């Protein structure tokens, strides 16, 4: 589904990604772990098309198409979803209206019927149960005044509405308590299907107890330095990241 080959990217003068290779097949869950500043979030933003990052080399194929030929909104309609680490507050736009707009724009591009407000209301009620969100959040402005946890819940609600083929969740676990993390983890897991895939970007292995990864990749200084299974995540929990840096550094100099 997603092939990343020797991807390099920078923001401003800063080279952040220095050659990423990664293959994600339909039905798989991949975890991207790594210390702060290793390029985890950048990878997510580059894949989603954030305009501040410049791709300087390599290629990314999504379902065989060159991802970089698509603008951010086209990628979204093609099925890529980025769950933001820090979702943006948009005062003056109601959450429910925004969700319906996003749903309908995607439906339109796929030739499906759009939902009118009443139909959408039935649809969304089912989704908010999935993420255990209080219905009053639908009437509020998009993310405005939401706590960190409420924003994350809203990200997963958007994911439930858009049902992406590839969801990239950037530090879903930050700002969430254990119960909320379990609820959202279960909601995310319930959206998995053989034709969908997940990329979980995280600092901590806890979220991976609910969303079981097929592969765990460790990013350091813009490269994947190790790939393994859940046991790698557990090892990181035990030992931290420093031992990896120490191991990798000599190779980096070579």
């Amino acid at each position, binding site marked *: 589904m997603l092939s990343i080959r020797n991807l390099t990217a920078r923001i401003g003068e800063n080279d952040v990604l220095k050659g990423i290779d990664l293959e994600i097949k339909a039905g798989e869950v991949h975890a991207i772990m790594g210390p702060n500043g290793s390029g985890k979030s950048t990878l997510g933003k580059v894949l*989603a*098309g*954030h*305009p*501040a990052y410049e791709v300087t080399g390599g290629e990314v194929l999504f379902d065989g198409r060159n991802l970089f030929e698509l*603008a*951010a*909104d086209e*990628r*979204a*309609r093609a099925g890529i*979803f*980025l769950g*933001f680490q820090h*979702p*943006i507050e*948009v*005062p*003056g*736009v*109601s959450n429910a*209206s*925004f969700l*319906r*707009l*996003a749903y309908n*724009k*995607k439906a339109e*591009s796929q030739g499906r019927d759009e939902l009118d*407000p009443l139909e959408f209301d039935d649809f969304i009620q089912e989704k908010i149960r999935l993420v255990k969100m209080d219905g009053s959040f639908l*009437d509020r*402005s998009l993310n405005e005044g939401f706590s960190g946890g409420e924003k994350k819940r809203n990200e997963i609600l*958007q994911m439930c509405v*858009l049902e992406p083929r590839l969801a990239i969740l950037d530090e879903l676990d930050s700002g969430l308590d254990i119960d909320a993390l379990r609820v959202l983890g279960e909601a995310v897991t319930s959206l998995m299907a053989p034709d969908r895939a997940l990329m979980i970007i995280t600092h901590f292995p806890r979220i991976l107890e609910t969303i079981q990864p097929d592969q765990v990749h460790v990013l350091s200084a813009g490269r994947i330095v190790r790939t393994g299974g859940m046991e790698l995540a557990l090892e990181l929990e035990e030992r931290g990241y420093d031992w990896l840096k120490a191991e990798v550094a000599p190779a980096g100099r070579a």
Partner: protein
Amino acid sequence: MAAVMERPLLPAILAQPRPAGWEPRRRQAEARLETLDWPGTRQEAWKYTDLAALKALDFTPGALAMVDITARILPEARGSRLVFVNGRYDSHHSNTSNLPAGVRLLNLASASELAHELGSLPTPGGTDPFAELNTARFQDGALVIIPKGIHLEAPLHVLYLSDQDGGQATCSLPRLFVVLERDASATLVEEFQGRGRYLTCAVAEVIVKENASLSHERIQRESAEAFHFSSLAARVERDGQYSCRTITFGGSLSRSTPQITLAHEGANLTLEGLCLLDDAQLADTHSFIDHTVPRCISRQTHKTIADGKSLAVFNGIIYVRKDAQNTDAQQQCRGLLLSTQARVDAKPQLEIYADDVKCAHGAAIGQLDPEAMFYLESRGLRPALARNLLTYAFASDLLAGIPVPSLKRQLRQTVLARTNAEHLETLP
């Protein structure tokens, strides 16, 4: 003085005989006008507002003409509507059948003694020649007195319509004076609209007495060729609440000058402005909030969306006098530029002479937030739609508090259309 005047201000209007009444104030205003030259950009108050286009035109006094007000009717105000056409009272389209008993409604032009006793100022705004012109020559106006303890259920809708006369540009000089006695409360909607080329020089005065509460909406939808000057002077007394919102859509050149005096302790003011500009429109807001006594609160928010080659000017002074301890004043000015040629000149000012106050102000002018754009695009919204949605959102919070549902709906539609976001009809 006369020797240095390049051209007298609006000679055809001043050549009209002085209407009866309002003496000696009309005579005094006229005398001041004779010494005043056209305001020029060398004066601080007119620095960015060039009147050259206005100077080149002649205006004749407007007359009562046939109008169609259907599109402007507010269902909530069917029985509490005053209509002025070209500055003349239109009794046919006005309807005050639903005003509660005790509410007094008079023609301001023939009630100068009472107006004076109630505290009307000769000319609010000091040296503003357009307000002086109104004082010197206004022919019809409304004096509304809401008596003690009366709550006006329906909004009072004052509609000012203007129309050019054949090919001739006209001039309207409407005037309004509203007094809320102790414990009274009301909603007032002033709305300006017109066709063709004309000049409006409007004056409104408001007095909110002890513990009274007024919500005042001023909607400026003048024609694209119109010139509009509106002077507002308000005084808020002990524990009075005054909330005033000016929404500017129209006019080739418009200027709004709200001057609000917080005159007794506990007075509370919310002053809001929203300007949506395009093409070569110029909209100028010069506000003055005068904290004269302790323990008053003021909140000012001014927002502009400027597209095309438009120019928005905001000059807002919050003046805290020496005795006005424990003043709580906040002023915020925000501008959104949608084109590279649009401009917002903002000058928020705090002048504080008291030492124990809580005052803050800020100005932020810029483009749409790229992070917010990316967020919406990452959910599949095309860039144009994301831009329109964010533009609408920028304006919409100032519409949320409008207490007249039909007016709020109308204004939302106008703002949606102006931001090309019509299809977002279900947004809050």
